[in-house]
């Protein structure tokens, strides 16, 4: 019998992390970020959906801490999350860097339980291009009440 894991908590101590995997070279060559953006989060068991697409729906609750970060498919190519646009009544993401690096992540706290999925917009800096790229598809935060509507 393995020792008891210390992961069981009423509210997870870890943020709900939303990770964007980006193929920057393909996106630059094709000018199509939607086909080269794959979103995931750590809340699959709680009911998040749309994994591996740019329209991830993350299941969240009021009070959850959210964290967005990026993994580039070509490890030597620069990709950063430039902005997150979301209704400020739901969340107000702030840009941070891992201490001592220039690698960006964003965090926010979910301010209210959601009855409808709240669409938001991510934009990314790719390579050395100064203007951010924004996918057409939009991810969303969704509450437990939106469960029925979210099934695909």
């Amino acid at each position: 019998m393995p020792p008891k894991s210390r992961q069981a908590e009423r509210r997870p101590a870890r943020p709900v992390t939303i990770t964007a995997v980006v193929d920057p070279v393909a996106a630059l060559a094709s000018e199509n970020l939607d086909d080269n953006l794959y979103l995931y989060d750590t809340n699959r068991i709680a009911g998040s959906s749309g994994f591996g697409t740019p329209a991830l729906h993350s299941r969240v609750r009021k009070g959850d801490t959210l964290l967005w970060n990026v993994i580039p498919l070509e490890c030597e190519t620069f990709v950063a999350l430039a902005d997150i646009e979301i209704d400020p009544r739901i969340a107000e993401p702030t840009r941070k860097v891992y201490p001592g690096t220039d690698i960006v992540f964003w965090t926010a706290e979910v301010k209210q339980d959601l009855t409808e999925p709240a669409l938001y917009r991510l934009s990314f800096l790719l390579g050395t291009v100064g203007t951010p790229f924004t996918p057409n598809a939009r991810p969303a935060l969704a509450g437990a009440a939106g469960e029925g509507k979210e099934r695909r």
Partner: protein
Amino acid sequence: MAQQHGIIVLFDVENALKERTLAGNTYWFDNMKLFGSAGVGTEKLVTIVPGTYFSDGSQATEQVLNWLPAALGAIPPTVPRNYLAEQERADDRRTLDELASLDAEGGVEEADVKRLQRRVGKRARPGTGRGLTEGKLLDVTGRTTGSAAAYNYPAPVITDITGQAVVEKIMYPAQYGSPDMIYDGWYWAATVDTSRPGVYPYTMHVQLHELVEQGGEMVWRSVDLTCESSLKIISDPKRNGFTGAGLGELPLPAVPAAG
């Protein structure tokens, strides 16, 4: 020039540890979608390996695979690998500075000591895992944490690559030490024999790590799991870009452009 294949394997570590399986908790990527890789971003990746050969039948292009494991919900792999050690040290320096200033002020408040205790964080001892040094716990934002439920998952470790593609000598995987030990350390790579087209599955052996309490101490426990992917080998003859066949004269104009 053919690019090297980068294969990223993203693990939902928390769920994989909870469920004790990588099934449903693994997402595979490569950078060869344009040449026909299928299932990029899913659990069912088939990596295309487009081989080429010369007219004498010899393999023309060396195809190289590199694997990079990453943990979902952890500090991303773009953050240098010595990051944890650096953060610990920076954190210790700050704490020592504050201790010194407390002493200089003459009085030590209990609240100050409590605050510094939190700052010092918790340490975990390596258990049966490989490659994990004794260290402080960092959370996913890179700050030290005293909470055993908030720690950043260590990067998953590939321990072996086996299966049909290896048994049939389609690829020759091995673990390499990078000369840049601090930032990259060890990585797995393989070269591919592209002379036998077909689809060849392989198994990746992965070690995850979880923090457990054992005899009143926090200990890293290793959890060994496997997941599968496959290579699709195709092979085509090289041809001359000017003639479409063999070597010929350069197609020069009768009179070249001025300039």
